[in-house]
């Protein structure tokens, strides 16, 4: 498929947005995990929430202008649904009323479900970056010359 193909163009534009959502999800999940373990938000730092905010805002901007060909509309719908869930999760993370993290956990789970659905539907949209995994160290897709350089 060339970039002139609408579907190929969609995938290449959607992938970095998916990655932003994935990173936002991990940061909010990590924040919640640390907060849950600590038992008090007072001793948990908000740096992951700030990181998530940046990624979610950037993803929102990209998704607003992401054009999807007919065959990818459903796919984009899941990305947008994940974004909505993450925006709600972000609000919950910053809220003073969600002290036990129930709302944050609910929206994090919802976002994770949507991103996982996307990952199942489309190679290259996995929620875990398997290119960095131990077993990827002999990835047959990496050209031999590049391996020598690496």
């Amino acid at each position: 498929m060339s970039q002139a193909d609408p579907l190929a163009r969609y995938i290449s534009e959607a992938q970095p947005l998916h990655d932003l959502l994935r990173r936002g999800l991990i940061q909010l999940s990590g924040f919640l995990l640390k907060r849950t373990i600590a038992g008090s938000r007072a001793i948990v730092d908000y740096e992951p929430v700030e990181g998530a905010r940046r990624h979610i805002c950037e993803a929102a901007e990209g998704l607003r202008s992401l054009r999807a060909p007919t065959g990818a509309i459903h796919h984009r719908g899941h990305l947008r649904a994940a974004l909505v869930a993450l925006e709600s999760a972000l609000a919950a993370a910053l809220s003073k009323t969600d002290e036990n993290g129930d709302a944050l956990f609910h929206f994090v789970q919802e976002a994770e479900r949507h991103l996982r659905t996307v990952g199942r539907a489309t190679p290259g949209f996995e929620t875990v970056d398997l290119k960095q995994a131990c077993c990827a160290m002999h990835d047959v897709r990496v050209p031999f010359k590049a391996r020598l350089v690496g």
Partner: protein
Amino acid sequence: MGKYSIWVLDYAAVNKFPQSVMLYGPQYVGIRNLPYAYVLIKGQGQVILVDTGYDHKEYGKYLADLYGVSNWHPASEVLAECGVKPADVTTVLITHAHFDHMGGLDLFPNAKFYIQKREIDKWVWALTLGPEFRFLVGAADPADIVKATRLAREGRMVVVDGDREDVLPGIDLRLAADTHTYGSMYVTVRNDGARESADAFILAGDLIYTYDNLTGLDKNDPQLVPIGLAVGSQSNLMFTSADMLKAVGGEHKRVIPVHEDRLKTIFPSRATAAGLHVVELALADGETSRVA
């Protein structure tokens, strides 16, 4: 006879894994078979797992197609070789947070899970870095963090801050900071229960991939050789290897690399009908051998 029975259980394998990842050093020096395995410890009223394997539903085809991971089998089938069901597992000790070690968090409904605080803290921190640092969070799965959060909310995720002795009777957790991962840990089973044990086994996670990490390749000139994949330092890996060896009185074979293909020839073992291996490290009083 020890207090615990200990088995290493294969659940998948990579048939052609580069030796250069297993042993830091020259590239293109050959390939090895790399079993994927977890460890079952049984005794003292406990059924303990060291690591959980990965979630085949999500990654199985991807891993098989691209990286040659083959012959995956579910925990229900693998544990059955030792007469254990996933619901029987009481404790899971997570050596590090890679998807292939903690991807099965939701498979053990009655277990309590232990992981290092540093592993979680630094994992989340690394995610605040830019995508150019993605190597540092390689193999981190958001689903696993969500699962871990669910467990924490249920009071089933215990975060350990550094070393902990007798997390269960005769079982110690040791932090190996900034090695393979930021908060890797290894597990010591003092199978005679003694503080200065003469019957200890160390379950090393990915701190070593092979016995050759403890001896080097030249038997006449042994040395510690770190693994080839670390976010921390090679120095830390080597000092950790030295610590592990010291804890078993220098008896190399008691430091268990779960990815070591030779385990099945060093210890009593058997092949299952599925082509996996059950390796029996120790057998507790009253326990039936699973390899006889």
